[in-house]
């Protein structure tokens, strides 16, 4: 079911010239030959519209529903949330399977103050949250009864909607979409924050504004606030080598190449993400919907996300979410625990620490409630000891 892969294959996509707006740098991904038999279903966003474009001849017209946060696609116009991305046949007219949402006033109010509610709709985020959801597979004595029977339920992670990120709305509004653009790499202060790829330029055009409603990691939110602007690439032509129009053109070509390589370098962030754990979720026709988790390497960027690939492994759809440092730590801990069958000592050995340090890390990562209280207490007592001992000795001599 689950297999590991090396990074994400962006073959067929080239990074175009970026445009910057404040701290946000948007690098378009261009596709010379778009995927025409997988198209986005626009119904989620506009109930009146049937589909984006009809392509002839239709060999395998498959539509899918990109994960939507809240949309009025239930027949009675009540808000509902999709269980992540779903693949659907065009003839399928039933409403996509989803869960009805009821909003209380408090949630709405929190949103108005730019405090963001978490909507567990993102397929990849769901995958991340479901990471080791079942808890310990062997009932080691250190784990609480609750941890063994209920696992990590419920796990909650926080993200920011695009609307709350400073300048992102303007950046998306003034971005001049390229004619054959099929995707976008979003950088905040030149840190890769998200990647988004769709099969066809028309789909991209339709879905470009939804980037604002998407979910982003903490990093983007902070960087967009902290950095006023990122430096622009400025080409420099060597005028000593220009004696004719042809020379000028040659200089331009060289500047363009520099420009492209500058962005190819920027786009490397995701490709160098290391080994990914890819889990296929749904298969339809020649397309496979999958989600992936990173290696949770604490020293590099970690992106979770979802992809749709065709039978040759060519990328048709991609959406990523950059984990914050804390989220990476949590994922790292959980994956290490699972690899060692939730045995504390074995895990501590793998991590190159002792049992106490591991308990400490678990507690600080917010998983303290999973461990038996006496284990946590013992750790806390032991961490207090070095401070209390010298004091007591001094008291004794006085």
């Amino acid at each position: 079911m689950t297999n590991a892969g090396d990074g994400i294959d962006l073959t067929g996509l080239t990074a175009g010239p970026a445009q910057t707006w404040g701290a946000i740098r948007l690098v378009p991904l261009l596709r010379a030959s778009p995927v025409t038999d997988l198209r986005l279903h626009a119904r989620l966003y506009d109930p009146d519209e049937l589909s984006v474009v009809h392509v002839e001849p239709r060999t395998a017209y498959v539509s899918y529903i990109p994960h939507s946060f809240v949309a009025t696609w239930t027949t009675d116009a009540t808000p509902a949330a999709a269980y992540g991305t779903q693949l659907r046949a065009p003839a399928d007219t039933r409403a996509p399977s989803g869960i009805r949402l009821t909003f209380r006033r408090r949630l709405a109010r929190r949103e108005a103050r730019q405090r963001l509610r978490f909507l567990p709709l993102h397929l990849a985020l769901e995958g991340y949250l479901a990471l080791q959801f079942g808890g310990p597979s062997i009932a080691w004595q250190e784990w609480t009864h609750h941890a063994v029977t209920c696992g990590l339920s419920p796990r909650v992670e926080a993200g920011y909607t695009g609307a709350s990120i400073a300048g992102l709305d303007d950046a998306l509004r003034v971005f001049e979409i390229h004619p054959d653009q099929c995707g976008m790499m979003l950088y905040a202060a030149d840190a890769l924050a998200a990647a988004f790829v769709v099969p066809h330029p028309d789909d991209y055009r339709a879905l470009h504004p939804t980037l604002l409603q998407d979910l982003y990691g903490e990093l983007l939110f902070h960087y967009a606030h902290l950095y006023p602007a990122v430096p622009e690439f400025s080409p420099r032509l060597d005028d000593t080598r220009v004696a004719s129009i042809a020379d000028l053109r040659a200089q331009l070509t060289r500047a363009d190449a520099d420009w492209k390589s500058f962005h190819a370098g920027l786009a490397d962030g995701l490709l160098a993400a290391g080994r990914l754990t890819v889990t296929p979720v749904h298969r339809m026709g020649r397309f496979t919907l999958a989600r992936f988790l990173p290696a949770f390497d604490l020293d590099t960027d970690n992106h979770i996300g979802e992809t749709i690939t065709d039978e040759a492994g060519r990328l048709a759809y991609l959406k990523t979410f950059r984990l914050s440092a804390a989220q990476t730590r949590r994922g790292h801990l959980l994956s290490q625990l699972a690899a060692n069958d939730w045995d504390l000592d074995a895990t501590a050995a793998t991590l190159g620490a002792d049992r106490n340090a591991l308990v400490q890390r678990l507690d600080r990562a917010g998983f303290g409630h999973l461990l038996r209280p006496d284990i946590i207490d013992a750790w806390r007592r032991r961490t207090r000891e070095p401070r209390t001992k010298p004091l007591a000795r001094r008291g004794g001599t006085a």
Partner: protein
Amino acid sequence: MSRADRVACEDVVMFVNAAIASTAQREFRSDAAAQRLSLGFLHEYVLGNYRDLYAATLALDVNDRNAALVVTNLLRTAREASAAQRAVEGRLIAARLRSLPPQRVYGVIRELRRLRINNRRTRAIVRDWVAARPDPAFDAIKYRRSLSVAARHAHLPLPGEVGTVLFDWRRPKRYETPILEAWRRAHYEQRALYELPYTVAEGLAAQHGIDRARFLTGIAPRLTDRERLRLQGTAARHRVESIAMDLATAPLTRLAIHVLSLPRPERARRRDELTGALQAAARRAARRQAGTWGRVVAVLDDSYSAAGSGVKRRRPLAVALATHYLLESLAADYTGLWLHHRGDPLLVHPIGATGLGTRIVDGLEHRPDRLVIVSDGWDNAPPGQAAEVLRVWRSRLDPHQATSVVHLNPVYDADTFDVRRLAAGVATVGVRDAEDVAALVELARFATGSAGFDELRHHLADRVERFLTPEGAAP
């Protein structure tokens, strides 16, 4: 040229650029508040430092909104001017008010009232302007509220029934003046509606619940040219034949805006008609200068940002399209290069990034006498390449300046208090209507520092002279 003179020259050119291009409305990259704030500051700055030149800009092609603002500001700060300055300002204001559309002038009067400016000179200016209006009864109907504000503020004596209809309209059983009588009857009688101006009749028609198509058919003979052009789309939707106009009389830029508002299949279907209309309008705008510009190449920006904003829909693109046809008629040999579009310019559509650099090289390859660039100045693929190309061209390939390069920018950049420049050595001028291009290119040489402050003063004095002469010659 001394440094102070150069600064003064740059300041004034900057202000003129802004006053031509900006309407303080939302643009593609900045919102209305930023535009208004920035423009307001610029007006204060130029008024405070170069009062004579500030007043003289009334003689240039600054847009109506800025002209109104200049008039208000001059009247507001009249006590800071000397007697001689006041005399010139008074004549300039009177002349400009006459050329402004009446609703703008009424706007100025309302603003004066809000600011409580009501000295003898202001009252005289308002009085003279109202007295010169061709039909006070018509104004009393069409600009009802505004005329009453003006009359009360400037203590105007209004002739006969005009005063009655403004301030005591319920009393008379009937009016002697036909239009006032029609207005009175139109409140009760649907037929009388069609004798009124369109904007007045529209409100009353809504009160009577008259069907839109029927109303448009009836009011068609009363429409002004601009109203007629504006209603083309509505008329087509409601299938009202009588509003369809001969596009051959519309001004160039408005016509371009209208053309771009049509869907592309319709533009393709009516290609000959629309192209003919645009070419005719361009010939009218070029007048005597037609064919005198030599070899001209234009690089025209049809990137996505040319779509403008919700309130200035496709304005930059329309200016580029209009300039295309105007230059075609001005030049002896013309080549128009769009960034993305190939083929018939009528089907141009705002899309994609702005990569001006390569396109400028394409243009320069023709070795033209003039290179005209119409763009909002955001050269972003890669950023600043156009500036590099123009720099290298100037320093290496064309040291004798055989080609003159002018950048026309239809968008005001609120952050820099100017229209955005492409490169240091290239003259950038703001443009609102393509019709003014010939006059603006004349102004362009002051933008690069190649002409001095004295020359600028002379140029402005000359323009003021020309602006004021017709009324001096008139009896």
